[in-house]
């Protein structure tokens, strides 16, 4: 494939994932409501909220500096960029550049600026949120890297496009499932889902991710929320494409492409459903139980690596 075609495919994938992000988040909300025997908001509620916010004015707290206005732009950019670093639908390494580890580092850039913005408003809640989010991320990052390492080790070669192509061909083995579960737990931690953080709450002392965005309003808040949703979709897409690659087409002809796109969408929403199931069945952990939670994820990842080595 020529560079231009590859660039076009990458950009379209990034735009597609960014567009579908509020839908995925809405889907999780609707499913949770159903489990609680509620009707729940319409699927497109996410888009309506964003539209509403776009017309509202930006309120800036007195102590904030220029960085407060820069943070939403950086976090949204990093989320969108992360989605462009690995191919979800078709393989052949057409992703313009980067690999799975780069995606994690780009997301870390977004988290860095969001945490700074949280602290900028000189409020206790922003500091609380940033401190906890950064601590949790510090424990989650190594587990994600080890999980990716398990994949790369299994196949040989770099964990970028080629890995995906290689992995696509192999039979579904047990250690890949373990690695997938470990990565899934990391996704729960990174995207502020229930066992680690409750996205629905607005009680200042319990929320982690929301606390950092407390001071935002108007367009900046829309950008930050969208960034969070895109990050969640990107991680779920990563899980779907890298860890469970079955059914994803490799060649460029439109028929196979459409088939693998459908398979990818199905897996994406399946994982979203899994998130909703987990959120409805498990209570939020106390903050200092989270290290044990992530310790379990780390144990799983190491077990996966040992299993792959031994078997």
């Amino acid at each position, binding site marked *: 494939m020529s560079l231009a075609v590859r660039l076009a495919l990458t950009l379209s994938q990034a735009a597609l994932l960014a567009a579908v992000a509020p839908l995925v988040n809405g889907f999780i909300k609707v499913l949770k409501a159903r489990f609680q025997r509620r009707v729940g908001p319409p699927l497109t509620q996410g888009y309506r909220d964003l539209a509403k916010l776009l017309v509202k004015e*930006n309120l800036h*707290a007195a102590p904030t500096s220029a960085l407060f206005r820069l943070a939403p732009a950086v976090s949204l950019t990093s989320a969108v960029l992360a989605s462009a670093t690995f191919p979800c639908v078709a393989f052949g390494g057409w992703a*313009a550049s980067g690999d799975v580890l780069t995606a994690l*580092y780009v997301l870390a850039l977004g988290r860095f600026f969001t945490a700074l913005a949280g602290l900028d408003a000189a409020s*206790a809640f922003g500091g609380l949120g940033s*401190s906890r989010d950064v601590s949790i991320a510090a424990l989650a990052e190594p587990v994600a890297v080890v999980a990716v390492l398990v994949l*790369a080790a299994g196949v*040989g070669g*770099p964990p970028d496009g080629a890995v995906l192509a290689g992995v696509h061909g192999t039979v579904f083995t047990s250690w890949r499932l373990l690695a997938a579960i470990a990565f899934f737990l990391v996704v729960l931690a990174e995207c502020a889902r229930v066992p680690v953080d409750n996205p629905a709450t607005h009680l200042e002392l319990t929320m982690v991710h929301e606390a950092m965005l407390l001071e935002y309003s108007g367009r900046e808040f829309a950008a930050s929320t969208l960034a969070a949703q895109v990050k969640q979709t990107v991680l779920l897409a990563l899980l779907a494409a890298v860890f469970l690659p079955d059914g994803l087409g490799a060649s460029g002809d439109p028929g196979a492409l459409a088939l693998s796109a459908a398979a990818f969408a199905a897996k994406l929403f399946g994982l979203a459903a899994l998130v909703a199931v987990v959120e409805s069945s498990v209570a939020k952990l106390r903050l200092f139980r989270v290290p044990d939670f992530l310790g379990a994820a780390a144990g799983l990842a190491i077990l996966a690596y040992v299993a792959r080595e031994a078997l």
Partner: protein
Amino acid sequence: MRGTLAHFALLLLLGYAALAFAAARAAPAVVVRLGAVVQVAALGLASVDAVRVLMTGAPQRVALPFTGPFAPVALRLDPLAAVFVCALALVGLAVALYAPAYLDRAGHRMSGPALQALLSLLEASILAVLLAEDLVGFFVAWEIMTGLATAVVLADGHRAEVKRAAILYLVVTHIGTFAALAGLLLLLGDAPSYSFDALRAAAASRTPLVYGIGICLALAGFGAKAGVVPLHIWLPEAHPVAPSHVSSLLSGVIIKVGIYAMVRTALDLAGPPPAWVGHLLLVVGLVSALLGVLYALAQHDLKRLLAFHSVENIGIILLGVGLGISAQHAGLPTVAALALAAGLFHVVNHAVFKGLLFLCAGSVHLGAHTHDLEEMGGLLRHMPSTGRAFLIGALAISALPPLNGFASEWLVLQGFVGATQGSPGLLRATAPLFAGGLALTGALAAACFVKAFAVAFLALPRSENALHAVEVGPMQRLAQNALALSCVGLGLAAPWVVPVLSRVGASLGAGRFTPIPQTGVLGGLGVGSVQPAVLAVAGLALGTALWVWLGRGMKARATGTWACGQGSVDGRAAYTASAFSNPIRRIFSNLYQFERATVPVAGAAPYFVMRSKTRGAISPLFEEHLYQPALRLLRWTSDRFAPWASPSPNRGLVVFAVVAALLLTWAAS
């Protein structure tokens, strides 16, 4: 006698130092400025030479006129030394720009010209160490560097801990030097001369046991200078007390000379290293990295925080070098070359961003007259340029794309990913642990610098000094911005710099490291690949577009910070440094053993306490469990021997009689 530029730079620096001491009284301001010019010129020349050597791969040698048995015979600049000369040049140029304005401010214990002279002597001694071509010249320059560094540490302080820092620094590094000297002499054995070539030839014929003892002693000795974990206790004491522009040189370059000596010994002088040397470096690197960043997180003195981060980054460099050696034994020459190149690249990167951060810390000290993060806050409003430079430095050290820290740390991580495909063995089994450790270090560093930047520069000022902070002079800002720009530049130019550095490995390892081809992609060669330029351009375009769009057409209204509806909040409610690091301190509590004491200050009775003072401190593990017991043991044995020190004449005669009798019986038998 054809002199190379580096050799000429050395003479230039020495000449200036002599002049500065001579003309110190005459015109201090002129001498200080002249010092800056000389340093810029000398380091510029040296870096030109270094780049030429790196590009061509051909070492430059200059014979010296001395003929004595102990005089250095020649100065030689080979690719490995060139990398470190570049690091010295980058930081040295910025320091030269920064120094004049810093020295004009009053309140230094040592006068401006004297400090400039010391600085140029220090840079000359570093150059001499890098260019030395035989053991005697190397150790002469090495010791002079240690002596000058101690003098510099003592230059500015009035307080008692300056003396303690200087003593700690001099004693620990000098004992390390003795160990290294013993190690290298062990390897040298009965070789004809002291030159490195004789050492290379002799080291090959050493028995494994002698090689083992020699290499361990040498690595431990040089490790003490580099600040590797068990021997690092002097680093967080010495670097913060030195004058700011010099502590950036100390932290950025002088501990790298320790790394240079370790790499030179392990890879070059002692012949091809066995696998266990690689594993040893890996383990020591990981321990240094993790403990360095964990201890940094618990600091609230900005310069001590940065000093501990030097320990962390030294750990990362050792991870790269160690992986280079181990991967080569696991049958992965490409991964080995990549890892070694990453290690050397991180040497340059760390020199640049650590130098930048220490300069910014110096500016903050000048502007806000404090090192304590708790007393800062809201400095971005008064010191925007320093703030921006500190932010770029923070992003670089937290290994966030697209800066240089990301490039080298990401490469080391890719090395570990590549290592998982090696032949089954210790490296392949432990690769995920090292990769996980490195990722943890990177994430903790990011957490630490969110704290450092936010608590210092954002939110509301927490003290009078912070409120009336004032930005530093234009030259100092220029120095900081220059280093910030080179951080970004090195990050983007990584795909072209790393292959050049991989040739250094090839020149050292005689075929054990295959050089990386020159492609526009960072990594490649069967390991993950990323084009930092593409990432940066796309990110920049999208980011600016969004930023403009978010602010356009909408006037932003200023309101108070949300305080649950009860009016607005003042600076005291904001998160401070120790508050921010509390979660991590509790997670890693068994490492910190944090002791906290709350003392009521005012109040009618013990029950109605109006105000109280809380003091918390982490227990210095290494001092308590490693150094104090050693000292106590030495003092205990010394007390046991006390009666023999200088007893009464009678006891002296008793000893004399016993010794005479023993000798006679021994001789007669």
